[in-house]
């Protein structure tokens, strides 16, 4: 691979927190997680960003929620990257490629079509929910609305759906195939997916005060959802947040030792060791059974490192690491770590050079993502 650097030059984040202010940069009403929202709940839903602003009115009514979330996040992201920015006279930010990840895809439409097929015994069916049920609908609709004929991919692999998209996006930029890529992750929560995953033991049986997620010792976690998009580019500019250094994924590690080995190999590919990491964002979700995996790695490699977490803000879902990537980019740009995400009392290094994200889904799919200061 060439050494073309990859910069994150725009963010769009539709989440259960106030992350989706669409004002131009410098005019945001909300600051970086200064007013975190807490709920007494076992699930979190996204704040509606006001879809009318992003999607033609006649399309809003028919569109599934995940599609609306994804389209809004991608448009917020392009705007954040400078599209139509009056201060700079605006710049063209038509993506060369659109790459998305989703764990379960358009599950609301899938359920809708299944339910009507079952209830009506295969008769009187209409196509809308079937058409929208395919996993690539978010990427397809973004392309359609942007009239973007470029490379268009959707990854659908459980807890590394977003990381797979990111791997491809980085490769497109690093090989010089694309000068920029719009990449994102999205998943939606529905009443049925929540109920079915409850039966599988995913969620805490009793609601918790979500901002105190780690104080609760029931098994399971809280469900969540979100759509987070990033504008990656081969050049730094006034909109840049951070450099995306790399991403790696692995399946079902045989032992804690394998995770440590993978971590060291990943960091050393950038000439780094664990001591160079200024902040580690962990996928801690309050489930004592699987949080142990994070504690093991902290014990061996990050005892004196500043640690952060994020699933008390957005809940658990297959592409939650996209929220973490948003957090890491914001932290590097602002060189500040909001109190609400801190796990321990270790101070982040100053200046904060490297932020590592370590996330796993059900101790099955694991991933490291590394972001570095501009």
């Amino acid at each position, binding site marked *: *691979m060439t050494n073309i650097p990859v910069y994150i030059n725009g963010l769009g984040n539709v989440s259960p927190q106030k992350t989706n202010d669409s004002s131009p940069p410098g005019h945001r009403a909300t600051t970086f997680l200064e007013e975190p929202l807490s709920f007494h709940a076992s699930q979190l839903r996204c704040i509606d960003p006001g879809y009318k602003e992003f999607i033609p009115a006649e399309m809003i009514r028919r569109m599934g929620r995940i599609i609306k979330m994804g389209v809004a996040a991608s448009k917020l992201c392009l705007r954040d990257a400078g599209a139509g920015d009056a201060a700079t006279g605006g710049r063209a930010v038509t993506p060369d490629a*659109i790459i998305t990840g989703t*764990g*379960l*895809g358009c599950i609301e439409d*899938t*359920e809708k*079509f*299944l*339910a009507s*097929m*079952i*209830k009506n*015994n*295969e*008769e009187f*069916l209409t*196509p809308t929910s*079937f*058409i*929208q*049920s*395919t*996993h*690539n*609908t978010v*990427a*397809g*609709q973004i*392309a*359609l609305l*942007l*009239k*973007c*004929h*470029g*490379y*268009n*991919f*959707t*990854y*659908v*692999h*459980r807890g*590394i*759906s977003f990381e*797979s998209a990111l791997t*491809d996006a980085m*490769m497109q930029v*690093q*090989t010089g195939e694309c000068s920029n890529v719009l990449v994102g992750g999205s998943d939606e929560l529905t009443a*049925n997916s929540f109920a*079915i995953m409850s*039966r*599988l033991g995913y969620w805490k049986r009793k609601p918790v005060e979500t901002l105190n997620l780690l104080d609760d010792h029931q098994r399971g976690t809280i469900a969540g959802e979100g759509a987070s998009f990033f504008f990656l580019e081969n050049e730094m500019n006034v909109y840049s947040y951070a450099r995306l250094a790399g991403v790696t*994924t*692995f*399946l*079902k590690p045989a032992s804690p030792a394998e995770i440590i080995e993978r971590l060291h190999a990943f960091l050393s590919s950038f000439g780094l060791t664990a001591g160079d990491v200024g902040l580690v964002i962990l996928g801690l979700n309050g489930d004592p059974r699987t949080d142990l995996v994070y504690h093991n790695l902290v014990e061996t490699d990050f005892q004196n490192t500043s640690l952060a977490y994020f699933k008390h803000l957005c809940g658990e879902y297959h592409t939650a690491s996209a929220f973490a990537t948003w957090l890491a980019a914001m932290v590097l740009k602002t060189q500040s770590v909001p109190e609400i995400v801190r796990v321990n009392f270790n101070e982040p290094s100053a200046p904060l050079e490297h932020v590592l994200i370590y996330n796993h889904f059900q101790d099955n*799919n694991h991933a490291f993502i590394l972001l570095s200061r501009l």
Partner: protein
Amino acid sequence: MSKRVYITGIGIICAIGNNVEQTLHSLLAERSGIGEITQFPTMHKGIIPMAEVKLTTSDLLKETGNEGRNDLTRTALLGMKAAREALLSAGIHDIRAYRTGLISATTVGGMDRSEGFYASYLADPAKGRMTDVVNHDCGDSTERVASHLGITDFVTTISTACSSSVNAIMFGANLIKTGQLDRVVVGGNDSVTKFTLNGFNTLMILDKTGCHPFDENRAGLTLGEGSAFLVLESEEVVGKEHKPILAEVSGYGNANDAYHQTASSPDGTGAFLAMLKAIAMSGLQPGDIDYVNVHGTGTQNNDLSEGVAMERIFGNDVPPFSSTKGYTGHTLGAAGAVEAVISVLTILHQTIFPNLNFSTPMKELHIRPVVAVTPRDPSLPIRHILSNSFGFGGNNSAIVLSKV
């Protein structure tokens, strides 16, 4: 860094064969796999045909050494069978000898089981067997195939509707070219489900007499099922292991039609761009393409749009082409890999397999497909094949496979 990516193994299971040899045999015998629906009860049985794999799910459990298990979807079993054949065909015995990945593709995932779960669940939310729903997501079949083959390095899944598995080939080839993997098993799997049957039926694009691709009187597609995988290896590995090469992945292109969620544009923009990019990457000129395995679903919209795009690329010299969906049906997420395997067979046997069920040329086009098994003209070897796959969401892809 490997500049070239070689195909060293192939595996397939589809309506016309449970492995490569049977599939080749049916292709040569012009025997279609389209028939009556048997895999699940449906009111469409006897009215709408499908191209099913001729093995029951319990046959597949036996064939993959999983007899008695109740936690595997038909989709995953099809994948295991084809991927295993591909690995054996590539002569790979030690999966850990090189950095090896698996890139699979699917559109329905474990829907063959979860639609049954959902019927019980809808009647009573406490009902429905959890083993029928835990495998619903698209990643499940991929991870089953990965553990069947012992792959842990890089494993992921792509879902871009009917272009999914060509994209798996493309992504896998890129991972080899950028030195992230030494070899990668790429392909896809999809089983027939009531969900897809009814879904496509609402769009009124299922031909009640079986598909007639590129025919003036075509009336829609025929759903199929199956799986196909190819083993891609770097120049270095092939050199070191003195591997026989089946073909080279010499080019690929991906573009979005950006016209409509399901319909293709009248001028075939996405198809045109995908083919153009694929041919450009291969370093060839359109005139170097000796055969096109078209997407050719048999719907009014696809075949017209694809035909227009081909005439834009090739002008008056459209190469011999055929849709092999009259044999296999449209295997959705597996289609790109199924047709890549068929294209490899075309290269290996220097024979074009025909477009079945064709009688009347389309009035808008000046082209007609190959309609009978056509061994090569010795003076015109089949060196370069273009294979197209297009899907919902405007996801259009094309690859060029070359004789080595």
